[in-house]
């Protein structure tokens, strides 16, 4: 592979990997607290992208109930992304209320909670399809609206070309990562989250309101999921209501690779899988979508607790 192409692919991989990382963090946060994988996370990711589209004041297509509708106002892209994330966070909290809390209060089998989150995912994806149709949407071009060049050249004679969008995506995901790490490690709520993840009953005895913290967890998880959705939509386009499902399944591979419940593991796993996909040789590009799942198999075989995961202690 040509050196220039290699560098470009590495940059692409980092941008995609950064998004995988923040998306997978949403799974990880919920998993570390509840020990359950929230299958609705992929649907929240999709919702985030659609919300951002709506907040931009853009018009919806020709199919579905909301055909040709648009919000009476539009906000600039950075603000729309933020609003989209917040709206996705609110939906995520609602999902917790409807599909998680009733089962948790009854002390139900975690398997049932998993199934009910799958049900929520199916319902949300199809509500989206019902409302705005199955067609692809793309955001108005950022580079034109912000007046920046579509790509950056590095080097002189044979420059390395990098899409500006990739740089934006990578920087935004890094900022989100830093904020999230700060939130988890240095704020009171974050420390309470870690305590609840360690031992829910003891932390409740010590005066931590676990139910409220679970709501916070779902909100943060939905927020970062929604922002990840917008970033992916920015990079390619919103390819339809199902685009979060495929992404959500890859996110599972990311968290298993990093180690279930490990925050730095999710980041590392995201970057590794992003880079792995970007470095697939051109003639095998059709198999790119299988990379994450092949990695998942290998991890299960070789090191089931993931790169940075802790060994699970079997409790009776």
């Amino acid at each position, binding site marked *: 592979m040509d050196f220039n192409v290699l560098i470009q692919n590495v940059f692409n991989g980092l941008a995609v990997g950064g998004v995988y990382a923040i998306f997978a963090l949403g799974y990880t946060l919920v998993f570390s607290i509840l020990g359950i994988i929230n299958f609705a996370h992929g649907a929240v990711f999709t919702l985030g992208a659609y919300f951002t589209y709506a907040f931009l004041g853009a018009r919806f297509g020709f199919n579905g109930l909301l055909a040709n509708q648009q919000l009476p106002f539009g906000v600039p892209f950075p603000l729309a992304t933020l609003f989209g994330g917040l709206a996705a966070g609110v939906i995520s909290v609602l999902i917790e209320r409807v599909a998680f809390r009733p089962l948790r209060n009854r002390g139900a089998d975690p*398997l049932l909670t998993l*199934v009910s989150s799958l049900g929520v*995912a*199916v319902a949300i994806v199809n509500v989206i399809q019902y409302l705005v149709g199955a067609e692809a949407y793309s955001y108005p071009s950022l580079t034109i609206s912000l007046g920046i060049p579509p790509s950056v050249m590095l080097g002189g004679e044979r420059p390395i070309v990098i899409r500006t969008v990739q740089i934006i995506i990578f920087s935004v995901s890094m900022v989100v990562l830093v904020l999230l790490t700060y939130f988890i490690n240095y704020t009171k709520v974050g420390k309470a989250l870690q305590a609840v993840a360690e031992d829910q009953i003891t932390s409740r005895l010590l005066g931590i309101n676990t139910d409220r913290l679970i709501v916070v967890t779902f909100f943060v998880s939905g927020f970062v999921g929604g922002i990840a959705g917008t970033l992916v939509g920015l990079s390619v386009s919103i390819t339809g209501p199902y685009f979060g499902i495929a992404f959500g399944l890859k996110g599972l*591979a990311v968290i298993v690779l990093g180690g279930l419940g490990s925050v730095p593991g999710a980041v590392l796993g995201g970057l590794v899988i992003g880079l792995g996909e970007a470095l697939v040789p051109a003639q095998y590009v059709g*198999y790119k979508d299988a990379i994450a799942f092949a990695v998942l198999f290998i991890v299960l075989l070789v090191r089931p607790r993931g790169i940075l995961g802790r060994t699970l202690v079997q409790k009776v």
Partner: protein
Amino acid sequence: MEDFIKQYGFLIIQMTFAAMLGLSMYLPLMAGQLSLASAGFYAIGGYIAAVMSTTVFAVPRGAPFPIEHLLMEMLVAGVVSAILAVIVGVPSLRLRGIYLALATIALVEIVRVVSLNLEITGGAIGIFGIPQPFNDKFSYGYIAFPMLLISAFFAYRLERSRIGRAFVSIREDELAAAAMGVNPTYYKVLSFVMGAVLAGMVGAVSAHFLNTWNSRQGTFDASVLYLAFVIIGGSRTFVGPIMGGLLLTALPEVLRALANTPDLFAAPVAKFLSDGRWIVYGVLIVIGTIFFPQGLITPSLFKWRPLKRWGLGRAKPALKEETA
């Protein structure tokens, strides 16, 4: 009657397949293992039948396809599914927790991506013109109905055998089962393989039935749908997934019929019933898990206590002898 079969014969066969696919999800669940692989094995079985019947067993166009060749394909599909299930099951089932669910999702996705790219599976277009052993679709009942009966009988006997009880003991408490001498990994893999074989064989018949096979058969969505059969039908007895498969496959047709009945519903409701049936499925799964965690059909339904059901009978005096 003839008109009814003409209109609904296709649907009835589909319902039979769905019941068996529900059963194939139920088998691993008996041992407490969530597998989402049935769709993957269904796709693999279908590809095996499609490739074999258009190459090795190819018949001239329009000629009937010999049934013994179809049975042979089902056998191959079952064996391949079993081998693959062992390969996937052993690494993920020696662990406790949700690893099987993750590994099976990976399997389904890998099958989809690989079949999209391989030449032998016809790429994105798939395989067309799979030869037909029967003249009409309803005749597939000669294969599908006995298959359903045999697999239902198998599940019925399984539930009352040593192996079935070992499955249930792992579902209830894996550590306790291990302490009692049940080898959890062995029985978990066994339950997973049983489900895989059934799904693979159904796929083989289904490929002939549908006449064409491509990578849209057996996706993650399909897995979730089969899971809904079990969760809504009931996951505590084999009757649950069978009923779930039959009813939920008929549901869209019923909804469509309701939607098409003039003056029964206002236009928006009718439109929702026909376009929004997947929303209904999703909501049903959530409601089912929260309010009917055992599904609609529970083992207690089969205990014949007509008086007690109406609050007239008395509870069995089970402790009488001990207190005396």
